[in-house]
């Protein structure tokens, strides 16, 4: 049903399209400028360098596509609104094919190429490193809303646990005191101390709901799931005091389920262990 052209359908003034083009281009340029000034939390682990490489690769490629894409969109709007008659109706099949395959495959190359060339090797190293002899093992039991931290002590063996023995005030992890291996275990709440440049293995348990062990400076995040014992292994490379957060909604005080993660030199670590063994060993 053809209708005569309505006067209000004539091309609108190019002012508005110009503003829209400026808005898109401006947001893209401003966005990239702002984003370039943001950095990840300062890196403090070995494998984290690989994760940062992955993120930086994506920030660069995606940032460039974003900037170009928004500017092209701005240009198309600016140009298009100045016309009152179309200049191209149907693209040839060849043009459609070229544009679709070139850009589709180009984007896949950037995305999959990044995963295969940078991402997977880091992922494989993180999850597949062979066990090391000098690893520091820490057993962590997350609960609403704290991190129970346990070191195996001089015998290197963690005592057995049993959930029926759990008591919030005296035995939050449910350690079986009748197990000799538990005698020298060291316990802490919301405090970790590890030596620098040695692999740390964290065995994660959750007592009640799902929590997530998130060390932003170490590029470590692993859910602690009831009924499972996932492990993460990483090598701290900088001394200092860092913050551990819970990254999986776990209840009211999720937002303050915080712990301190201290990375110290080997000497400081040894001295700390001695001190703790004496003070905790002297307790009944």
């Amino acid at each position, binding site marked *: *049903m*053809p*209708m*005569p*052209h309505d006067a209000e*359908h004539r*091309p*609108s003034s190019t002012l508005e*399209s110009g503003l*829209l083009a400026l808005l898109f281009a401006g947001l893209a340029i401003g*966005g990239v400028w702002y984003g370039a000034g943001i950095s990840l*939390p300062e890196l403090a682990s070995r494998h984290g360098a690989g*994760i940062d490489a992955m993120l930086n690769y994506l920030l660069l490629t*995606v940032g460039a596509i*974003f900037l170009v*894409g*928004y500017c092209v969109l701005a240009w198309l709007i600016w140009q*298009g*609104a100045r016309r009152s008659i*179309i*200049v191209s*109706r149907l*693209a040839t099949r060849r043009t*459609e094919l070229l*544009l*679709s395959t070139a850009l*589709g495959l180009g*984007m*896949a190359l950037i*995305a999959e190429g990044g*995963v295969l060339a940078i*991402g997977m090797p*880091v*992922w494989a190293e*993180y999850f597949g490193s062979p066990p090391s002899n000098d690893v520091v093992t820490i057993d962590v039991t997350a*609960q609403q809303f704290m991190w129970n931290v346990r070191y195996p002590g001089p015998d290197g063996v963690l005592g057995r646990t049993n*959930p029926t023995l759990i*008591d*919030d005030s005296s035995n939050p992890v449910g350690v079986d005191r009748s197990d000799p291996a538990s005698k020298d275990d060291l316990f802490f709440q919301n405090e970790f101390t590890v030596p620098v440049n040695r692999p740390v293995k964290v065995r994660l348990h959750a*007592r*009640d709901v*799902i929590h*997530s062990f998130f060390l*932003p400076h170490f*590029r470590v*995040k*692993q*859910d602690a*799931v*009831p*009924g499972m014992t*996932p492990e993460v292994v990483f090598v701290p490379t900088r001394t200092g005091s860092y913050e551990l*957060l*819970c*990254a999986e*909604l776990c209840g*009211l005080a*999720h*937002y303050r389920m*915080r712990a301190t993660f201290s990375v110290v030199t080997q000497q400081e670590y040894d001295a700390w262990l001695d001190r703790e063994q004496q003070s905790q060993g002297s307790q009944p």
Partner: protein
Amino acid sequence: MSATAPVMVRTESEHGDHALEFGVLRRYVFSTDHKIIGIQYILTGLVMALVGASLAALIRLQLGWPERQWTFLSQLFPKGMPGGVMTPEFYLAVVTMHGTIMVFFFISYVLVSGFGNYLVPLQVGARDMAFPFLNMLSYWVAFLAAVVMVVSFFVEGGAAASGWTAYPPLSAVAAAIPGSQMGQTLWLLSMAFFIASFTMSGLNIVATVFSLRAPGMSLWRLPLTVWSYFIAAIIGLLAFPPLTAGAVMLLLDRHAGTSFFLPAGLVIGNQLLPNQGGSPLLWQHLFWFLGHPEVYVLILPALGVTCDILPAFTRKPVFGYRWSVWALVAVGVLSMIVWGHHMFVSGMSPFTGEYFSIATLTITVPMTIFGVNMMASLWGGALRMRTPMLFACGVLALFGSGGLGGLFLGNATADMQLHDTYFVVGHFHMMIGGVTLFGTFAAIYFWFPKMFGKVMSEGLGKAHFWLSFAPFFIIFFVQHFVGIEGAPRRYYSFTNYDFLQNTRGENLLISWMAMLLITAQFIFLFNFVKSLFAGRPATANPWEATTLEWTTSSPPPHGNFGAAIPNVTRWAYEYGVTDVNADFAAQSVPSSRVPVTA
């Protein structure tokens, strides 16, 4: 695929003037007319959007000004905000309900069910949906779902507070969080109603597209709007059953003592629970097997309507129609096999992480093709900068920036750092928040004249766009970077962390922008109501568009097309042609008058 005649053609006597014989109740409340049902869905969804937006305002008040006392709010929420400061449990209930309401009760109702109902029969040239009674039933079940969800705010313990993902054990054990008392049960009940309703509605759309197309309306002549609803409906039908099963299992865990998601040895509130043998990860698989396809159920209609709105304002056909259709089909297929990218750090095997990364990123191919085709649709066009066009351009922009964020989160190695941070919040708001929101607005401005026979105010519409886009973009763009700085999502405040102190300024900016964005929506509401009652009468085809709904009156009569169903002669994008005084030809214009392109 040949131009098949419809299998079920209703005879004229069933429709037409019969509508007038019904009372007001049958015509406007318990109507089986797809147009009324579509409008019912849209109005219900808009009311729910008001609730969802108010919840967003509460979230931003807390995150922007964490210690501030809002005394006037303490009167509104004496329990949730005693003394004007929100409690953490209220905050989590607000976050959970904001997500749930916006995803399931705003976008799903307005864009998917609302416009799906309204547009699909009109655009395929049918007189109604294939199953009109089922359609009415689906709306009333959906209405019930919304009521139950809103009521859950007022029960003991408050609304569900375990996030819209409802991960057990948090959602399964009443002692884990106050919201996991009655609130979570009502949440699950409401979801069950929602799924039932969505299934009826999806079946109807699939059946209508298959069997009620007008003569000549071959699949390759369907507008992209219909394609997108058709594929979204199929995805929904395939993906929802696992969540239905999951929801029943969670209800049983909560009330019948089963242990589907609860392993042995749980101690909550210093009480050892008797459960054993369950797996919390099982829920996550069931949830995301729906959850990921669901985002495409939401986003594809937004992309589809944008593809049909653009040509009306560029005056040329969409670019690469067939490529776009195949891209939609490919996305539909791929969406079913990538759910694990929500679970990279969940404790599932790292090998599956590798698979899900590679599979997820293959979606870049069809999505890039689709996005490029939408952008290239502007290429060489003569643009008319009207309100629907502005919002359609907003969809293009947000689809680009939102889609690019997916390259980070689909990549397991990058996701290890970004998972459950504000990067995720920024990403999904750009996509299932922004693409869908701007798509919804584009659709409302575009089809309002058809629905109500009135023209919306162009000046107010444009003001709405100009005050909405930049704030929206800034809020969610900045959230990506707050995530890169390490801020986790679902946090009541960030004041306890030294390394997050530098996000204070960003959170303040986001909160101010959110207030501006929410305020700007009142322009829309005012425009909507004012135009409804005092808008200029609309002509049958005010945008000079080609699809079949524009060939009938505004609003269309009961039965849609008067005495005879249109005979479709061409595809949906016959723009840039020469006809008597027009540069377009509707799909039913005889081929003798204007040559047929496709």
